[in-house]
């Protein structure tokens, strides 16, 4: 299991990645993140919904009310152009970080 401390700084990237192809909502995003991580990372609800709040304030996502089959409301999120730009920047940052970290991973000592 990955701790939330380790993943801090990349939660926004995970969330935005789930909105690149289509709009989505809280439970679906959280479920997909867990599945894609192979069950290694479960994003806490507090982290997820606070991130939505922050991303919306930054203008990276917009929200709207959708409906569900049995009538309960759902809040959907759409990624904005600024959000896509931010996602690209975070991906580039990740490549740099990955490269840097690799320099410190000494295989012969593992």
């Amino acid at each position: 299991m990955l701790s939330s401390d380790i993943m801090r700084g990349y939660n926004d990237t995970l969330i935005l990645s789930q909105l690149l192809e289509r709009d989505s909502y809280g439970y679906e995003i959280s479920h997909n993140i867990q599945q894609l991580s192979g069950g290694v990372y479960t994003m806490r609800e507090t982290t997820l919904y606070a991130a939505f709040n922050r991303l919306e304030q930054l203008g990276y996502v917009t929200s709207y009310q959708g409906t569900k089959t049995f009538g309960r409301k759902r809040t959907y999120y759409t990624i904005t152009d600024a959000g896509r730009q931010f996602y690209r920047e975070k991906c580039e940052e990740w490549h740099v970080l990955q490269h840097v970290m690799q320099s410190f991973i000494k295989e012969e000592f593992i």
Partner: protein
Amino acid sequence: MNAIQNYINALFSSLPKTPNVLRMQAEMLENLEEKYQALLREGKNEDEAIGIILAGIGTVDELKAELGIREEPHDIPKDDHHAFLTEHAAFQKQFAIAIAGGVALCILAVIAGAVTDELFHNDILTVIMILGPIAIAVAIFVFFGIREDWYEQRYKEICNDLPTGDTKSSSLITVVSNLVFPLAAMFYLFIGFQYNLWHPGWIIFPICAIFVGGLEAIEAYRKTKQ
């Protein structure tokens, strides 16, 4: 679902009720309800589903950290410290000026005494001219000595975050030590000019040194005892 709703309500209870926070609370609840249904479909029983959900929500501290809500009291002492340090720096300047002024008064006293003696040949007037400025100088030394002591204590507290030990008695000893030598000087000048007892009169200074040394030893002993 009641357990989840109660948990969410408790989680948000200490947060400010802004539209954003209320919306987040409602959104979290609606999505957790869906998660609950999904867990039941996966074959979990109700208790298991609630357990999984509650374990994954997170704590109020995490929520506050995520939302950037900081506890107020943590910030106030820092501002307080900053204000104190500014005040302390200003006081140190005042202190230096006051000490220099006190020393100047002592020198002035000797000159005034000599001049008065030369002009009027009046012993009483001469003593007044000497003791007057010295009394003012002593008052300055004592007043600023006490304040300096108080500032130093607080400064040490802030720097080390150590509680001050025996503030009252140690500052009393400091005040006495500060007083002894100026008083001795006054007394020495008085008996010198008035009765011409300069020669055995100087013995007052070694006596004072021993006295202050004794006081400092007592203070040091008290500190080690604590």
